[in-house]
């Protein structure tokens, strides 16, 4: 039995495909339209509106709030200036990833942390010994992500943005409603996330949609988001790695390094959870992109006498990655056809030696129950990174 989000009345009504998904216990739309392609193109050319309310949101306040977050997560959050946002992740003692998300410094002693999966207990337990209070505000807030090249124009119609820069945040009034705006997103495009009182959710949604007609706005579902985030090279908890809180064995877990989040780890500072382990595990494995040889895929279909077909949604089932000798050396955890790049792309992980751009590897590919391999080329992430994402 899934829970409604604050804008359930709107998303439910708008969803004509009846395709829904369970997102951390909430009912989320997978695709509003039977085909998610229009939603994807809206994000890349106009703008898309995602209901991301199921993201867990924790408010952390108190004199030690910055110190606590620096201890809890892999980044030195205390250094973050008020009004700035940072992307980060957090680990257990063994350096195994627990979750990732953004942290926003709303005020001197007030931060907001977002997380993918339920894990209040982990955050809260760590807080003992720090002068902070942790409160779960997930259900108190509505979170809408407005993503795409037209997002800025649309928002400027509704309120005064004051040229909010990439990874900055501020309180704004949009359509007469008190909102908190961050210039962040999970699509790798120009975009904003709007946080507001849950009760204002429907009004906010309506205002955005009404003004959005002129900006090519469409409500967009998780399928479109999934393709966008793979193009942007963002990993997803539960797909590209498994939270240590859900692992049975150490082998199932990952370090931030293995997930391409090594850049977020600030090792040389006061001790934080997992620091010692991360020191040792730096550089074990790497995350990278793979691009499949499309002709090889076509050939596999032809072998069966079939025209090539690729599902419109991204695939969340991991497949093995082999080297030239047929030895399994890694895995591809997310794969999709990129409508923008016209390529079949995937997010992969393997030891350093195989991660050099240009390396040729083999990815498992199944056609009509026949397991085959297709050649792939290693590339850097992200696949897609338009300058507008961070433009002033």
């Amino acid at each position, binding site marked *: 039995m899934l829970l409604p989000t604050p804008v359930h009345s709107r998303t439910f009504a708008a969803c004509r495909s009846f395709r829904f998904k*369970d997102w951390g216990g*909430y009912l989320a739309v997978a695709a509003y339209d039977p085909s998610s392609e229009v939603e994807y193109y809206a994000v890349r050319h106009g703008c898309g509106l995602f209901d991301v309310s199921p993201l867990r949101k924790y408010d952390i306040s108190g004199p030690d709030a910055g110190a606590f977050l620096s201890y809890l997560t892999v980044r030195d959050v205390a250094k973050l200036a008020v009004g700035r946002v940072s992307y980060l992740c957090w680990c257990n003692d063994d350096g195994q990833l627990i979750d990732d998300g953004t942290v926003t410094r709303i005020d001197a002693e007030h931060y907001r942390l977002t997380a993918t999966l339920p894990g*209040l207990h982990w955050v809260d337990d760590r807080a003992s010994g720090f002068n902070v209070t942790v409160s779960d505000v997930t259900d108190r807030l509505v979170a809408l992500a407005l993503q795409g090249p037209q997002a800025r124009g649309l928002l400027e119609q509704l309120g005064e943005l004051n040229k909010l820069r990439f990874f900055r945040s501020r309180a704004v009034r949009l359509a007469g409603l008190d909102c908190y705006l961050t210039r962040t997103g999970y699509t790798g495009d120009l975009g904003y996330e709007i946080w507001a009182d849950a009760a204002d959710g429907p009004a906010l949604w309506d205002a955005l949609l009404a003004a959005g007609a002129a900006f090519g706005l469409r409500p967009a579902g998780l399928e479109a988001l999934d393709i966008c985030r793979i193009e942007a090279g963002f990993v997803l908890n539960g797909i590209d790695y498994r939270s240590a809180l*859900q692992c049975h064995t150490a082998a199932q877990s990952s370090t931030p390094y293995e997930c391409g989040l090594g850049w977020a780890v600030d090792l040389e500072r006061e001790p934080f959870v997992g620091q010692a382990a991360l020191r040792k595990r730096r550089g074990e494995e790497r995350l990278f992109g793979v691009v499949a040889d499309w002709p090889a895929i076509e050939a596999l279909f032809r072998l069966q006498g079939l025209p090539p077909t690729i599902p419109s949604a991204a695939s969340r089932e991991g497949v093995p990655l082999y080297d030239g000798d047929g030895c399994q050396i890694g895995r591809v955890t997310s794969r999709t056809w990129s409508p923008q790049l016209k390529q079949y792309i995937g997010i992969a992980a393997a030891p350093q030696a195989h991660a050099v751009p240009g390396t040729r590897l083999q990815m498992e590919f199944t056609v009509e129950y026949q397991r085959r391999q297709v050649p792939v080329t290693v590339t850097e992430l992200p696949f897609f990174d338009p300058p507008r994402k961070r433009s002033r």
Partner: protein
Amino acid sequence: MTATTRYDAIIVGGGHNGLVCAAYLAGAGRKVLLLERRHLLGGAAVTEEHLAGFKYSACSYVVSLLRPEIIHDLELAKHGLSIIPLACSFTPDLSGPGLVRWPDFARTHDEISRLSRRDADRYPEFGKAMGKMGDFIRPLLMQPAPDPTRLPRRLGESLSLLRRLRKLGPRGLAQFVQLMTQSAVDLLDRWFESDRLKAPMACSGIIGTFLGVRSPTTAYVLLHHYMGEIDGAYRAWGFARGGTGAISEAIASAARARGAEILCEAAVEKITTRRGSARGVVLEDGREFEARVVISACDPRRTFFSFVGRDQLDDDFVAQITRYRYRGSSGKVNLALDRLPDFSCRPGRGLHLQGDIAIAPSIDYLERAYDEAKHGAFSRRPYINLVIPSLTDPTVAPPGKHVMSAFVQYAPYQLAEGPAAWDQQREAFGDTVVETLEEYCPGLKDAILHRQVLTPLDLEREYGLTEGNIFHGELSLEQLLFMRPTMGWARYQTPIQNLWLCASGAHPGGGLMGAPGALCARRLLEEHYL
């Protein structure tokens, strides 16, 4: 009457363990005779009809520990066994909506969130941790208990246990020690903050024991109940279609199909011995049977003191069996209902009624129930585990009517006035249970068409459970593994040659598990005793 045939094995007692043992032995081509005192098979796993059309699972009411390999080996599905999983666990409340824990994550998360968001987020992790510990313990349930005191003979077994222990790592090992020695509440306190969540979870730690939720070692019992699996699917409890007796009937049918001979209304009086070796049995009606081995599917005290006789045993062994503790602490009330009960905290006929329902509003409530019992009285406000199987399995009640089974703790066998006082207190006990339930579902009283009250004394008299202990002896640490029933005799053999034990008084103990019966048979066959 003199014996006409000589059997390979005689099994005394037609409980599910006796039946499992018989089926395995017969399946291996041995000539087996099973003798049951009552008119029906199953022991504590029976379905009885006291009011026409209403089928009570008189004692045991839900199943999960039944070993999948037994279901598979004996082809029980073919013999009619069908287990329907419980929908959820419901804990009604006098104020507030109560708590329902569902198999589905999101729904449970939502329910627990109302009590505590932290607890809700942590809940799946608890199941995972228990699962991990269960994975560690489970193999012990399907092999004879390793006995570290029998070094070096059993060195291999003990070493492999040690190796597995060390593989748990420091934190895992600490968790293991805690599970074996802590109280259910200590264990749960580490994980959760909400009393209303912890109370129903702690209940699994006291079922069948004469201990409270705060008594050390109950954490292990909690795990024991977490280990339930149906056909390899973990942590699921279910009803047997047709009542619990259907399980016994399926096993009996499998045993018969394999050639075992089964006699009911055949109460054994003596196990006869010659020069320290068992040679057969004498029934109360005078019939005699002989066999190469006699296997008792009754509890140790009955086996050794009633059937064999103290004079046949050495003093030390007599002392050990005398010390083996029973102390039943549970009773059972079965109700035939005219209509479905309505819980005021969650009215209506929801799916929440199709699970098990625990009257366990707080840790303190449970502990007080225990306190009364330990001083020799039944709990005035007891812990009750309710199920309404007729909602899931309509074959057990006439259309529109229902049966309700209430497992009740604590009902101490040893009342302050002595066990015999149960005859005077039986109805008062039944009333207490009904009145407690009435608080949660007003109007229940008026819906009762028939009520069966089983006190520990009744369990002893009627079902042959010594001192009313549902597990043939307490499942306390000092009576588990290589110490069940006593150190040195935990491998189904006894000091009387050719006399074996195959029921809940042997490792791994009680519950509808079938493991003692299967393990005993396996040892007899594999080590060529038979």
